[in-house]
């Protein structure tokens, strides 16, 4: 398996990360990708914000 992944794969894994454990290997791939990619870093922050916003929803 490659260590480098595309934004397409990274975005799917970032979403999955919010819903349960994903393998350590995948988490490493995400972390590496996020260090190199501003767009996915924004995406990851946005998903965390969505979670906070929904918990705050009224």
């Amino acid at each position: 398996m490659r260590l480098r992944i595309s934004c397409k794969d990274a975005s799917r894994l970032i979403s999955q990360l919010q819903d349960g454990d994903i393998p350590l290997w995948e988490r490493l791939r995400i972390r590496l990708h996020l260090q190199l990619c501003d767009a996915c870093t924004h995406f990851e922050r946005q998903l965390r914000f969505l979670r906070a916003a929904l918990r705050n929803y009224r």
Partner: protein
Amino acid sequence: MAEPDFAARCNSHRGYLLRVAVLQLRDNDVAEDVVQDTLLAALQGASGFSGRSSLKTWLTGILKHKIIDVIRRKGREPAFASLDEETQLEDLDALFDETGHWENPPADWGNPESALSQQQFMEVMQMCLEKLPPNTARVFLMREVMELESEEICKELAITSTNLWVILYRARIALRQCLEQKWFAAPGRAA
């Protein structure tokens, strides 16, 4: 039975409960019934409210069970007619170019938390949630508002974990796109 003050406090969350129920059930009459049942159960079980969590959180917990009951009774058939479409990933491929890069890279939202206290923002979010496909909205709210674990949702709705993650991914992509367009990058608004 609860004291009138408690009833009034429960009732003040009625609008919120109804919005959540409608988003998940997509049927105003059934949603009204579910909210009515929830408020009734809350008043009858008022002594069960310890005050450790907020009243809203407690009511959401009751609503969660009522909605799951409805889904168990009737939700699996017609309401899930479009589930197949909503678990396909193909149309989401269009968000990326052939090398897997974003066609429209997600923007920096700055400090989005400050939007949470703004009524207008919550209205935009409501509108964006209403635009989600029915099953996507139902599953997403079960996860994010009702705070059910993934395994519980799969069990209640009889879907696979792969179906679940595609639906949640679809919901998050659609919602972030809608919020970016309608709020964070909207003309005249500093992000």
